[in-house]
């Protein structure tokens, strides 16, 4: 297993290099020039040249020891992403500051969705074919069809503005749990449809297995069969979905953050994309890729832990 882990870690090198190369080409070759944006109105040619010099955009792209790509690689390896050109703040400071609020929002949202949807999926699968099952599937499809923005607008208007159950927006005078409660609730509600439907399918596959019939025949109660046997055997698809979703938690939730004033990384990323702040986009993409590769490896290790039939070679 250790040899496997080392081998997989070595595989990450070309993958991350590929990501860095791709982002570099996309932003620096295809993405266009942002000098005019930095220079402000009525900037002279010399000012623009100075900006290019300051950010190193006057250097050759590749094939030189002093090339832009060499600096791009070096910055990535040392996690020194420089300063954002849009507001001159250190990119790493932005990411550090945004990670907390983003994770405070996405982790409870993710765990809430997971617990609720897996539990409901077990119940619904157990009651397959009944009116409850049909109703649940209908609601799932409806939930998946409604745009995320509609959930936000509905929740913010009715639950916060009209009924006053939650604060409408972030305020420094509020405790974190107060202003995060509604966006988390909306996130769980919006994510429930797709997740419940997926886990229901997984559970149904397991419920049709012989061992379930055997367990019931032996007189085990439904709770024990569902939570001890079915859930355990359904872990492989659950783990795949769960672990691979974790890196995306880091990227935050763009719409929720924007509508509820949570200064997280989703917000940061969309501002950077809108303003072509390549330093920020590049750093976020790189960190996202690293997390994705690492969590992919963790997924494989988890397979081995939950299913004795899987061995890592």
């Amino acid at each position: 297993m250790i040899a496997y882990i080392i081998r997989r870690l070595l595989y990450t090198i070309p993958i991350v290099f590929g990501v860095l190369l791709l982002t570099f080409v996309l932003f620096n070759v295809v993405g266009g020039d942002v000098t005019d944006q930095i220079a402000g109105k009525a900037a002279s040619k010399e000012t623009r040249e100075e900006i290019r010099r300051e950010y190193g955009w006057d250097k050759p792209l590749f094939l030189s020891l002093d090339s832009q790509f060499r600096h791009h690689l070096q910055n990535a390896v040392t996690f020194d992403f420089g300063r954002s050109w849009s507001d001159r703040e250190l990119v790493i400071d932005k990411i550090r500051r945004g990670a907390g609020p983003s994770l405070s929002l996405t982790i409870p949202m993710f765990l809430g969705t997971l617990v609720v949807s897996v539990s409901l999926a077990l119940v619904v699968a157990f009651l397959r074919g009944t009116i409850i099952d049909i109703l649940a599937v209908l609601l799932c499809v409806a939930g998946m069809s409604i745009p995320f923005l509609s959930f936000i607008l509905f929740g913010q208007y009715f639950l916060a503005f009209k009924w006053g159950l939650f604060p409408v927006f972030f305020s420094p005078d509020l405790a974190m749990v107060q202003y995060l409660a509604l966006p988390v609730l909306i996130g769980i509600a919006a994510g429930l449809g797709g997740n419940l439907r997926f886990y229901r399918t997984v559970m149904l596959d397991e419920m049709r297995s012989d061992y379930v019939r055997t367990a019931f025949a032996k007189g085990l109660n439904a709770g024990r069969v569902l939570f001890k046997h079915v859930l355990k055997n359904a872990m492989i698809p659950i783990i795949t979905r769960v672990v691979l979703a974790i890196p995306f938690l880091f990227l935050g939730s763009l719409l929720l953050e924007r509508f509820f004033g949570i200064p997280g990384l989703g917000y940061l990323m969309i501002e950077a994309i809108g303003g072509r702040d390549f330093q920020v986009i590049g750093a976020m993409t790189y960190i996202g890729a690293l997390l994705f590769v690492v969590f992919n490896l963790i997924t494989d290790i988890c397979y081995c832990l939950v299913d004795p039939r899987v061995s890592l070679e």
Partner: protein
Amino acid sequence: MLLVIAGCDGSGSVVDSNEVVLHAALTAKVRGLDPGDIGDVTSSVVGSQIFECLYQYHYLKRPYELICQLAEDMPEVSEDGLTYTIKIKRGVYFADDRCFEQGRGRELKASDFVFAWKRIANIKYLSKNWWIFDNKIVGLDEFREYTKSCKSAADVDYSYPVEGLTTSDDYTLVIKLKKPWPQITYLLAHLPTAPIAKEAADFYGKDIINHPVGTGPFKLKLWHRGSYIELVKNPNFRGEFYPSEGQADDLAEGYLADASRKLPMVDRILMMVVQEDPPRWFLFMQGKIDVSGIPKDNFNEAIDQRGGLTAQMQKRGITLRIFRDPSTYWLGFNMEDEVLSKNKPLREAISCAVDREKYIELFTNNRGEVAYGFVPPLMRAYDPQIKRITKTVYNPAKARQLVKQAERIYGGRLPKLTLAMPGTDVVIRQRGEFLSRCFKEAGLDVEIDYMDWPTFQNKVKTKSAQMFALGWIADYPDAENFLQLFYSRNASPGPNNFNYSNPEFDSIYEQIAVMPDSDERTRLYRKAERIVVEDCPAVFLMHGVAYVLHHDWLYNYKPHAFGYGLSKYRRIDNTKRLAYKQLLKAVK
């Protein structure tokens, strides 16, 4: 259920009920609080509460009038208009900050202005605001040349002499100009010209964007980037008083009720960044922010068919303020484009094809005025005759005739034209659809090209956009700020995005650019505008009209088109704010 209990609104507040707090919403994030590099409105609004300039606009008087802020008096100008001597106030102190010895703010000196302006000139500092001083002050361009030879911004020696920027003593600033520049006093009221303490620049280095150290009425307490900013009273503030005179109706409007009161009148300002319209509107209706614009989707909720406040708004004690803003929006033509530049009937046809009134109704809820020229109506040089002079008002029949003329000049069927739109969102697309329909009705084939702002800007600045939707909001109340947009030497990448060139216009512009304010200058301004309107380098669409709502606990909200640092004039009545909470409960 746990989440509902956790979220229950009402507890958690740690606010002192006697404290007077102004609650505001910012519609964009603050980029930085270093005045030398501030170029956006939101950062200017926040920065202007912290920093001060030599001059400021009188809060109440209209037309807009400059008065002293850090200057002791208006500048003494030499007869040739080339030397400005400005005395600065004594006893003005920077806010306390750890960049100073023992953390105590020191007295402002004339040399702080010299340092701030040299800093903008320093090419390594990459200021967005060099345009203010470019080729204006004797020796400053040479200083900029010198900074090119330095390795970094920190290596620049600010004692390097600049002949046109000197101090005869600690409180006297002497500015020598290369040629007369009558607009200089307006620029001296512009935030980027605020003085900077060298200690702060040296101490914080590039992080000075996060550590503003000014002389203004407020100082930064907390800034959670992208989320909120909290300002508190600056105890070192020099002491300023609410104006005791204004316009004729100011007394009746209650704007003089606080005459001669010491400023600022609030203890704290809390500014939240709320970029989306729905939460901003909800916060305003809940009384959690004091002032708000009216989102397009909530316009009918706030404004009735007669243009006044709806009964619901009146019941809540909300006040409506309507004012003209110094803006003009247009569809510009690239006058270096092969097809458009040589075909005036084509440009006129495009202009006659656009139904401005419908455009204003559809996209601004009638919050705009049809533009016939480019000088907005609130400017003193606005030409009331311009409507009669322009030949390109909306007239689809005339547009169709002009298209035929244009085809004759072109020598056949006109090629497809392209209009660049600065955005890809729904509203921009709706605007594009509307314009496309207008052009189609006139027999014009125009492709609407939607793109993000950086791509758009790049296209315009590299002269590769054939037509583009853009506008201009004046920096100061002098129509010269608009006229420079058509001066041939300012062609792209300069501010003349039209790449318009007319020797007659240029000659008038060069004449008026150095003329002090006079009736003759106004006459020439109008003449220059008429030349441009006749040449039709753009479809002038509209001038903006702003609608602002505020609650009845906020006093002294007089709309101002050019001033940013206005929070010091506001007064809050906490009793009324509390009463609103009761009212909301009753409404529920």
